[in-house]
Structure formats: C-alpha cells, structure tokens
C-alpha cells in the first residue's frame, strides 16, 4: 500500500472492494506508531498482537462475505478512561495503574461489534481533567504539528494519534471541550454529540451531567461513520436517550445552499478575543460558507463568562463528588493539577451548585430561542494555535472563558473542524453547533466545508518526513 494515510471512508471503500487489506492497513498504522510515538506519547498501552489478530479475523470475514460495515477492519484507539475488558485502563492516574476491567465500556463494545481493530489505549489528562501534567505515570501527549506544543486535552492522545495517522479514528470524551479542543489544536475533526446520544456506561466520569462520549477522526465524514456505530439507547446510562437513530451520513454531499448559519461574533471578538490567526480562519470560513450558498446571521447570547461560570461550577462540584473518597484519603496521589482542581470543590456550596443548575436551564432556553430559524451556529473552538506545552496556564479555567463549555451546558451537539493554519504553522479551527439530535446537519455543513477547502490534504510535517525517510 502507499504511504498516504486514508480516511475511514476511503479505507472502508477500498476494503470493501478488496483493494486494501485490513492487515496491511493495521501494519501501516503500527509502523507509524513505532516511528513516531516516542515523540508524540499518544499511546499509553499498545495492543499490537491483539490488533493484528483482529485485523486477520476481519480480513477472513471480509474475504468470505464482505464487510459488516464501514468500520470493519479499521484501526482505532480508545481514550484511556474507557473500560476495555482484559486491557489496562489507567485513566492516566497513579490510582489505577493496575486496573484491568472485566467488562468493556458501551462504546468499546459498539466499536468492536462494528469490526474495528483496537490498536491501543490513548493518553488522557488524569481522569480527563487538569493537564498537561508532568507528574503522572505517563508523559503528556505532544502535538504532531510541532512537538514542543500542547495538544489541548483531555483527549490529547486521540488528537495526536489521529493527526499523525497512528489510528484512523478514536474515542474522546468531552466535559467542557475535551474532544473539540484537541481536535482543533491537532487539526482534525471531533464531535461532541447531543447529550444522551452515546452511552457513557463504562467510561470514568469527569462531571456526570456534562460528560459526553464522541468520535475524533481526520474528517467530519469519518466522525459520522463512527457515530453511526456508537449511538443508541443504553439502559446502563441513566441519561441515555431513547429515540430512533438517523443515518448520520444521509445529508453528506447535499450542498448547503440556503442553510442558515448564525455567527456568535461576540464570543470570539469581544468576550474572549481570539488570535489574529484564528480570526482569519473564522473569517475565511464564513466567506467559504457564503460562497457555498449558506446565509449568515448574527446571533447574540449571554456573555461567554456566564456560560463558563455555569459550566465550571457544575463541573467542579460533580468532579469533587465523584472523586471525594480519594480526595479525602489520598489527595497527594493525584497529579498536582488534578489535585488543585479537586480542592476547588471545598469552595463551592450546595446552593452555588443549584443556582448554577438553575442558570443552566435559562441558558439552554436562550440557545434554543436563538437557534429558531437557524440550522447551526458558529464560533471559535480555541482562542489561538496551540501554546507551548510548558506554557499552558494552570488556572486557564478562571483566566479565559472557553468556547466549548457553553454547548456542554446546553447539551447541544458541536463539532470542531480544521479551518487552516496560523502564523506558527499550527492548525486553527471553527466550531459548529447544531440543534439536539440534528447531527446529520452538522456533518453536512462540516463535510461541505472540508471538501471546499484544502486543509484535509495536509498532514503534519513529522508524518510526511518519516514516510519519505
């Protein structure tokens, strides 16, 4: 096979046509992993023998009767807060270094049932919060576009591994932006689906009412293919939605002429002013959408710090409750950054929490009202290109309201896609937000943008240099 890294959609078509062997595809991913992960630290556990066995099994089945779907034989990875039966699941923490689950998480089961090939477990901030940390058992993941820089988190390993082609897709989790942030800084696509669409069963909690599980991949189309396998009701998750599933790729290729995109300019131009590079990426994206026939409208919401305050108070409190026992008895065993986050729980009262949850209802109603007559809204995903990994502020939470938390607060689906590159050569991104359970529309618009722009044609230099060597 060639050195080009296929998307899931491309590989799936080639596998179905018997032009690509799942074994060769898996070997190519493993070869890149062995060449690059010493620098990237995207993986904490590689399941090489299992992956090759799964790939061989997939090849046998496909040869005999064709693939069971577009993920059959596709190499993937799972964030290391996702339970995997018989495979270490450490949550990036000293607490769980010897933890080997005896059951799979719901998303693990679903991706396995779809025939995907598990390459291994991916680096995460400890229990999906607080990084980058240098005092954990494993080092933080590095950005493939420049390894001196941060990936964002907490699905840091998934972002790095997908961008570098060590896997074709992976699982991230998102409590305030942990899928969309790494997707943005690593130049890939990542979707936080509607709250309740993908089961959280078997995934370590960060904050119960804000936690979402979702796919990260090179393109929006690949995310749609993965979401098709992941979505669905699960009685093990008390928040799981019970409703018919759409075909998530049904609207791809339909064009976006006449669709209405609301732009929340004040989020990224006033409330938290983005860098010049990110601003250029957003403005250029808006011009592209206009050229493709979409109608742009201005949207006004409550200031970003209102959303951040609501989400942060809920997140701090629910996390403190989830990890209270260890916080009380073994606080020193957490990383320094996680420890500091957990300590905050002592400063939030029960009344503060309930007021935040009451505010949440108001903010969600506000977004619902603002989106009437619109198909999606748009803002930044991240304020700038990735910072250097040793210059990430510890108290970002208070210093800079993030662009992703509002849609965890609302539970609305939101996707980050690459919108170009900044002056430093690192990716910049836009975030598109849909109405609940309207992921097909999000994918339609994101896919149209990716196909109209050249950014999916460029992989990190580190990857192309190794391929040429």
């Amino acid at each position, binding site marked *: 096979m060639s050195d080009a890294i296929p998307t899931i959609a491309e590989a799936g078509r080639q596998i179905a046509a018997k032009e690509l062997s799942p074994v060769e595809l898996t070997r190519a991913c493993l070869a890149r992993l062995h060449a690059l992960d010493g620098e990237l630290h995207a993986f904490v556990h590689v399941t090489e023998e299992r992956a090759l066995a799964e790939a061989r099994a997939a090849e046998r089945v496909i040869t005999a009767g064709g693939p069971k779907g577009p993920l059959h034989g596709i190499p993937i990875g799972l964030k290391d807060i996702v339970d995997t039966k018989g495979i270490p699941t450490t949550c990036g923490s000293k607490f769980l270094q010897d933890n080997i689950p005896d059951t799979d998480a719901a998303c693990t089961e679903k991706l396995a049932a779809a025939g995907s090939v598990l390459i291994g477990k991916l680096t995460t901030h400890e229990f999906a919060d607080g990084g980058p940390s240098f005092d954990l058992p494993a080092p933080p993941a590095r950005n493939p576009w420049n390894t001196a820089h941060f990936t964002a988190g907490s699905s840091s390993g998934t972002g790095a591994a997908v961008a570098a082609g060590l896997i074709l897709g992976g699982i991230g989790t998102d409590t305030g932006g942990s899928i969309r942030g790494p997707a943005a800084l690593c130049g890939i696509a990542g979707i936080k689906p509607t709250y309740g669409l993908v089961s959280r069963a078997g995934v370590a909690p960060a904050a119960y009412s804000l936690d979402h599980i979702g796919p990260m991949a090179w393109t929006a189309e690949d995310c749609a293919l993965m979401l098709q396998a992941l979505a669905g009701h699960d009685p093990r998750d008390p928040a799981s939605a*019970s409703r018919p599933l759409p075909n998530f790729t049904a609207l791809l290729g339909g064009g976006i002429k006449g669709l209405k995109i609301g732009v929340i300019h004040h989020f990224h131009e006033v409330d938290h002013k983005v860098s010049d590079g990110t601003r250029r990426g957003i403005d250029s994206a808006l011009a592209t959408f206009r050229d493709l026939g979409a109608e742009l409208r201005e949207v006004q919401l409550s200031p970003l710090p209102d959303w951040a305050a609501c989400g942060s108070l809920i997140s701090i409190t629910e996390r403190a409750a989830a990890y*209270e026992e260890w916080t009380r008895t073994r606080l020193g065993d957490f990383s320094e950054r996680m420890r500091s986050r957990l300590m905050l*729980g*002592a400063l939030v009262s029960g009344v503060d929490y309930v*007021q935040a*949850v*009451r505010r*949440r209802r108001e903010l969600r109603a506000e977004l619902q009202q603002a989106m009437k007559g619109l198909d999606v809204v748009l803002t930044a995903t991240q304020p700038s290109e990735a910072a250097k990994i040793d210059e990430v502020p510890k108290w970002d939470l208070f210093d800079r309201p993030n662009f992703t938390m509002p849609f965890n607060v609302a539970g609305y689906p939101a996707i980050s896609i690459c919108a170009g590159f900044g002056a430093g050569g690192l990716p910049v991104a836009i975030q598109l937000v849909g109405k609940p359970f309207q992921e097909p529309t999000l994918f339609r618009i994101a896919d149209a943008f990716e196909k109209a722009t050249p950014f999916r044609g460029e992989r990190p230099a580190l990857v192309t240099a190794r391929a040429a060597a």
Partner: protein
Amino acid sequence: MRSDINDSALDYLLARAGLDLTNEQKVELKTVHVALAEMAERVRKPRGRMAEPAHGYGFAEEDLA
C-alpha cells in the same frame, strides 16, 4: 460580590470537605477564591423562587414495567 476568604473561613470549609491541606495549598486556594466567588455570583439572577433547575427526574421504562 463576595470578597477574599479569611483563614478561619477557609479552615472551616476544608474541614467540612474532609480535606487536610498544606499551607501552600491553602494559599493557592485563597488566590483563586475570588474568581470562583465571581462565578458563583454570575449564576445568581433575579429569577424568583419558582425557577426550576435544569435537571429533571423522569421515570424510566423499568419503573413502569
């Protein structure tokens, strides 16, 4: 707007949370307390006592079986 937290108030909150922190950790918490208190003020709006929180409680199919 709530102001800086004093040592005895912080000690009370930490004791209630079951946390035994070093002096350095207490100093750090005090530095971020104001920002956290500002967040707590931001979520308070004149909404009256009837405004419900976002979380509802519904019966599952299993309850109805």
